[in-house]
């Protein structure tokens, strides 16, 4: 590519991180370090029942026996787990705000700055928001309206108090406490997150959304999200994430569990924009996340859509266990790395039920010194008669210092199942660039437009509000482009 092109690419990828501010707020923090006492303290602070305290302790002992995974195509300095603080909360949140009026105005201001106004009157109609600030949920909106429909949408810690039976029944049923190093750590120390239960036959009347914000220094964020869609129900859930600009790396190790019962559908969308570190690769979030959905009932469907633009390192594989007959799993992903970001992301589709279907569409964009890896598994179990998978992984390279890697695993033990996988890697097409420029577009705009087009199939899976944010993150104008 000509030198002029690389200048335009720099313009594209060097958009400043807009969410790097710090909120100066009084914090209740547990001193750095991790032992059984710390876990008991977290559990006590949250007033948890015994089963949960025991569960945490069990996870902690499991974690002690495990070693950090090293198979991902990422490199980082070893993490000192004793230097992290495992709990941070805005001080007055101990008892939990009863309404928005009790929420610290500084927090409300924070969310205004992030573009997530929590006051109902100012909010986008039709989206209920749960805001998680460091370790605790600070506000959940539209709760009453949702309750009218029978939908439970609340902070995880509240669900533990109010609906302990549901939590006990489903927690760890998709991601067991011994699942992997980071999931076990999360199971031991998780702080807060969102809980959703959609009862039988209910179509959730609005989009549910959680906005995660890391604010405190030297803390890890370990949220836990549990979404249960009972028979014949439907829910669409969105999450967004931001963090201040800090020189040290911060660990984010979340676990998300989705359960879809018979005929239920869960759509889970993420726009992940944690602080990616600076141009030299200093600082940024380590985003080591376990996300898994269980299509437990027949004809159920779980759809993951993710736009990953942030984090210094991303390690996540939102997956589907297609247990119910005729169940469907989907994974739509755009992952962008620039500067020194590294992403190792993809999905697992485990086909167990008959006639199960899965679709994987992954678009990776690498720029700067970024390293972008798609890692995926499609497994057809002997019981998965007539199952189908289609996978398409495309990588686009912007610059000669970055990398794009594709590691798909296909395992089939059922001859009537069909798997198709295709992958391509290339740089941006000179022909397309020239065509756009001949029509009068600047090189930068032409690149924006082509990159946006490259991601379009994924963007169109996002709810409208998020599609806008996602495209803005790619520095591309939405206008008219999403048809």
């Amino acid at each position: 590519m000509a030198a002029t092109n690389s200048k335009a690419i720099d313009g594209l990828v060097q958009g400043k991180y807009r969410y790097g501010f710090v909120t100066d707020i009084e914090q209740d923090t547990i001193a750095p370090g991790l032992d059984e006492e710390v876990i008991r303290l977290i559990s006590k602070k949250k007033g948890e029942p015994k089963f949960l305290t025991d569960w945490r302790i069990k996870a902690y002992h499991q974690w002690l026996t495990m070693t950090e995974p090293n198979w991902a195509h990422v490199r980082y300095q070893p993490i000192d787990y004793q230097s992290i603080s495992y709990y941070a909360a805005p001080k007055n949140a101990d008892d939990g705000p009863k309404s928005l009026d009790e929420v610290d105005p500084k927090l409300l201001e924070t969310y205004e700055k992030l573009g997530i106004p929590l006051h109902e009157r100012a909010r986008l109609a039709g989206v209920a928001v749960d805001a998680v600030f460091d370790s605790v949920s600070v506000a959940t909106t539209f709760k009453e309206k949702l309750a009218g429909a029978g939908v439970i949408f609340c902070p995880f810690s509240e669900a533990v108090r109010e609906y302990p039976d549901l939590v006990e029944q489903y927690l760890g049923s998709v991601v067991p406490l011994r699942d992997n190093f980071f999931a076990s750590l999360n199971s031991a120390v998780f702080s807060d997150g969102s809980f959703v239960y959609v009862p039988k036959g209910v179509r959730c009347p609005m989009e549910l959304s959680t906005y995660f914000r890391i604010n405190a220094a030297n803390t890890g964020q370990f949220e836990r999200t549990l979404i249960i869609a009972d028979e014949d129900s439907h829910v669409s859930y969105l999450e967004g994430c931001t963090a201040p600009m800090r020189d040290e790396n911060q660990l984010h190790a979340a676990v998300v569990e989705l359960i879809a019962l018979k005929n239920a559908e869960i759509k889970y969308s993420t726009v992940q924009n944690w602080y990616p570190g600076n141009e030299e690769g200093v600082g940024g979030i380590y985003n080591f996340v376990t996300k898994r959905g269980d299509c437990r009932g027949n004809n159920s469907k779980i759809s993951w859509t993710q736009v990953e633009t942030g984090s210094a390192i991303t390690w996540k594989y939102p997956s589907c266990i297609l247990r119910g007959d005729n169940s469907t799993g989907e994974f739509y992903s755009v992952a962008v790395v620039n500067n020194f970001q590294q992403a190792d992301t993809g999905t697992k589709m485990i086909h167990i039920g008959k006639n199960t279907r899965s679709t994987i569409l992954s678009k990776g964009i690498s720029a700067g010194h970024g390293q972008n890896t798609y890692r995926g598994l499609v497994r057809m179990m002997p019981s998965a008669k007539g199952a189908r998978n289609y996978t398409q992984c495309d990588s686009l390279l912007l610059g000669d210092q970055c990398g794009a890697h594709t590691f798909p695993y296909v395992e089939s033990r059922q001859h009537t199942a069909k798997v198709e996988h295709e992958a391509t890697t290339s740089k941006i097409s000179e022909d397309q660039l020239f065509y756009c420029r001949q029509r009068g577009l600047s090189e930068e705009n032409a690149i924006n437009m082509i990159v946006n087009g490259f991601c379009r199939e994924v963007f169109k899976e996002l709810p409208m509000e998020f599609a806008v944010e996602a495209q803005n993150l790619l520095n591309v104008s939405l206008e008219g482009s999403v048809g």
Partner: protein
Amino acid sequence: MLQIENLHVCVEDQPILNGLSLEINAGQVHAIMGPNGSGKSTLAQVLAGRDDYKVTQGSITFYGKNLLEMQPEERAHLGLFLAFQYPTEIPGVNNAYLLKAALNAQRAARNEQEVDAFEFMNLIKNKMEMMQIPKTFLNRSVNEGFSGGEKKRNEILQMLTLEPSLAILDETDSGLDVDALRIVADGVNNLRSPERSLILVTHYERLLELVVPDFVHVLAGGRIVKSGDRDLARYLDEHGYDWVQTEVSAQ
């Protein structure tokens, strides 16, 4: 408007144009004909600013400015338009979006007011009807899955919308049936005016029956070897290019 003097061009060290000169004034229509491999498309691509082509000698002046120093988009802003022989497919970018973005980029460069979505639709409505392009076309990705004829009509739609002062049609007639050729010709004729000039690069005479040129040039061996009026095109159609080659080698 456009002066090409003694133009020499190489592709991968292979000389393609060897001293081509041509002058085009406002309002004129020039046809450039020639056998395969004579350098017709190379000329079109060089004018539009494709950088795989290396100009080793000569000059091109457009409105008194050195065209060779300009980026492709700067040439477009000055009113130069190329209807591509093989229009590129751009997956995921819809047709209407590209066209509107291009129109506004050019308007902005000329300090003109940009158009909004509503004005844009009004602007292209008649042009689409003229080119017999259905509305659904606008929401499809640029040229993706288009037939050959659809691609060519789409190029002309873009030309009509961008209203260039110099349009170069690179074999726009090739692969079109009679009806499609008529539609394309009507579109081109509609754009003709005393201020606008056209370069028709073609292999056949049939387009020139519908879009009548003021000048016809024959390109062979990378140079213009013969110039005349429309009768030259007819003669070429009847007698082929062999005699030109013979004449050239005789010189």
